[in-house]
């Protein structure tokens, strides 16, 4: 055994060029694997972050019926006393805000043609920021955030472009009111609103198709002064959302009507989207798998060459009474050695590349705008994220696979007749 290890080592250092070339190939494969994985994970984390910060919030309380018919966003299913819910949550240390989320038809008031149906939210200008990051989406030259009580609106910058609207222009929003009777849709109302801000967020869906108005103005116009469709609750990033939801449920359980409410975390709220994202990452896994296959073919080829070059040597060792198993071992050790060197270098390279991606990231903003909505809720800079599981598994897989592929040519060599191996060519 000791002899086999030293023989493997000597072969590796003797055929240095071959060792280096193969190790470099493995290293590049492993480094790329780690790097791409870091990018994908980064994109996914970024996507989820942007989903929470701009769309769903961490958790949300609403009427069960509202959720059942969520596609219609019927504001007639509203929470009657959201402030009471918020007060209960506050006692448990939860920050929250309320919103009215509804569908509206928006059009340029001046042009009076070409309306879009969009998702809208009436937001509490004072407390929305405890959960959402909309305010960060408005740079000074794009106007300002909403002020309470005013007939004004902020809209996504791409939507504004589609509507041919600039700052301080007016839009007309047509939507249904909550009606007088709980549970029944009300009459139509037209809101004339002044555009005070254009949103430019890292979430393309917001930029492309959402608009926001002040909560108290919306309450007065659509809800007869009362209620909101949802209360959005904040909990720390990284907390276990399932148990947070349970705690939230417990906190509000004593309120009248609590039995009719649904409490959902962002995973439930964006279930369809998250499913979409995971099939997408399934696709990326296929790309990684292809990398992997290419690497395997590369190593097999090297080992094939190594065995082929040394057929006579193998024949001699077998003639001298070395057992087939020992010969297969010798090549296994040699290949494992290359795999180790390559994987180690690949791991270090991969860590460096990932560090670059985590600290600086890659700027893809131009490309993303060109592609339109690609499903990842991210704009601009792609950042990576550390995935130590991948690093470790790539490292060990590199070594193990290298060793394993050596079996094929080595087994072939020991299956040859010894006299065949020894023949002078």
């Amino acid at each position, binding site marked *: 055994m000791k*002899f086999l290890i030293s*023989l493997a080592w*000597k*072969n590796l*250092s*003797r055929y240095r060029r071959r060792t280096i070339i193969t190790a470099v190939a493995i290293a590049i494969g492993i480094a790329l694997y780690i790097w791409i994985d870091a990018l994908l994970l980064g994109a996914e984390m970024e996507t989820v972050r942007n989903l929470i910060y701009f769309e769903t919030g961490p958790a949300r309380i609403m009427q069960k019926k509202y959720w059942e018919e969520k596609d219609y966003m019927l504001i007639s299913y509203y929470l009657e006393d959201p402030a009471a819910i918020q007060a209960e949550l506050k006692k448990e240390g939860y920050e929250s805000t309320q919103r009215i989320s509804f569908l509206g038809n928006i059009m340029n008031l001046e042009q009076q043609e070409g309306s879009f149906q969009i998702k809208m939210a009436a937001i509490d200008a004072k407390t929305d920021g405890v959960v959402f990051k909309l305010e960060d989406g408005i740079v000074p030259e794009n106007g300002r955030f909403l002020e309470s009580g005013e007939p004004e609106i902020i809209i996504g910058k791409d939507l504004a472009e589609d509507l041919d609207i600039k700052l301080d222009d007016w839009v007309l929003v047509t939507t249904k009111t909550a009606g007088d009777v709980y549970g029944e849709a009300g009459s139509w109302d037209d809101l004339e609103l002044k555009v005070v801000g254009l949103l430019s967020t890292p979430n393309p869906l917001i930029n492309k198709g959402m608009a926001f108005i002040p909560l108290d103005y919306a309450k007065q116009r659509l809800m007869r002064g009362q209620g909101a469709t949802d209360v959005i609750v904040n909990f720390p990033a990284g907390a276990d959302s399932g148990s947070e939801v349970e705690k939230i449920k417990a906190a509000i359980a004593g309120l009248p009507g609590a039995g009719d409410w649904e409490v959902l975390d962002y995973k439930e709220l964006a279930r369809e989207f998250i499913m979409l994202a995971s099939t997408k990452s399934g696709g990326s896994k296929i790309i990684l798998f292809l990398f992997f296959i290419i690497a395997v073919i590369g190593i097999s080829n090297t080992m094939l060459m190594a065995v082929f070059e040394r057929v*006579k*040597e193998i*024949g*001699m*060792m*077998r*003639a*001298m*009474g*070395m*057992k*087939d198993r020992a010969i297969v071992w010798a090549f296994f050790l040699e290949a494992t050695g290359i795999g180790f060197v390559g994987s180690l270098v690949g791991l270090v390279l991969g860590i460096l590349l990932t560090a670059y991606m985590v600290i600086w990231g890659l700027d893809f903003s131009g490309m993303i705008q060109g592609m339109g909505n690609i499903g990842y809720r991210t704009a601009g800079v792609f950042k990576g994220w550390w995935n130590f599981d991948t690093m470790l598994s790539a490292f060990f897989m590199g070594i193990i696979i290298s060793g394993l592929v050596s079996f094929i040519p080595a087994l072939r060599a020991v299956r040859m*007749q*010894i*006299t065949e191996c*020894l023949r*002078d060519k």
Partner: protein
Amino acid sequence: MVKADNVKKDYTIGKVVVHALRGVTIDVEQGEFMSIAGPSGSGKTTLLNLIGCLDTASAGEIYIDGQAVSGRSKNELALLRREKLGFVFQSFNLIPVLTAIENVSFALSLLGLDSDTVQKKSMQIMEEVGLKGLEKRFPNELSGGQQQRVAIARALVKDPGIVLADEPTANLDSNTGKDILKLMEELNKKHKTTFIFSTHDSMVMDFAHRLVQLHDGLIAKNGVGKGGGK
């Protein structure tokens, strides 16, 4: 010591059957210095391979130390070769990544001896084959004759009883070849090791104490050799 009893070997290439050996019977005693001679294609290599348990006969039987070799597994044959047979090849076949002495001790380490013994025996045999001082050289830093000396040391270091050498001098010029044969003869005398070597070169045959002539897969002549290269 070594016996071949009516050994036959056929090779089949496609539909053609080549009768490489057509019934060879020989009896080799302990300590003989014997040459198998014959023209190209007469079956010398085939016979040596059969005696060396590197290949199996189509018919007949080979006995090593009185024991028949047919019907043994690959591993059993490997163990038998490891203990009882040494090989010297026409093209030396040293492991290029090992030094001269490492090539020699490789044969011993297969036997599982402790490293002190391995080291001692290897050094000693290196001196016997006249390579003292060249132990640390790699094969490509040695001349052909020196490489063949390493190969002889490797074959002999484990005290194998029988050394088989297929055309051991064919890759060497005639003076170097003579030196190698003299060395083999010397070691044969000293260690009582049986040497069987093949050749088609009459100068080489002249060293043999016993000469077996093959012709077309049959023994044409089996007699006393001149010995000593006269």
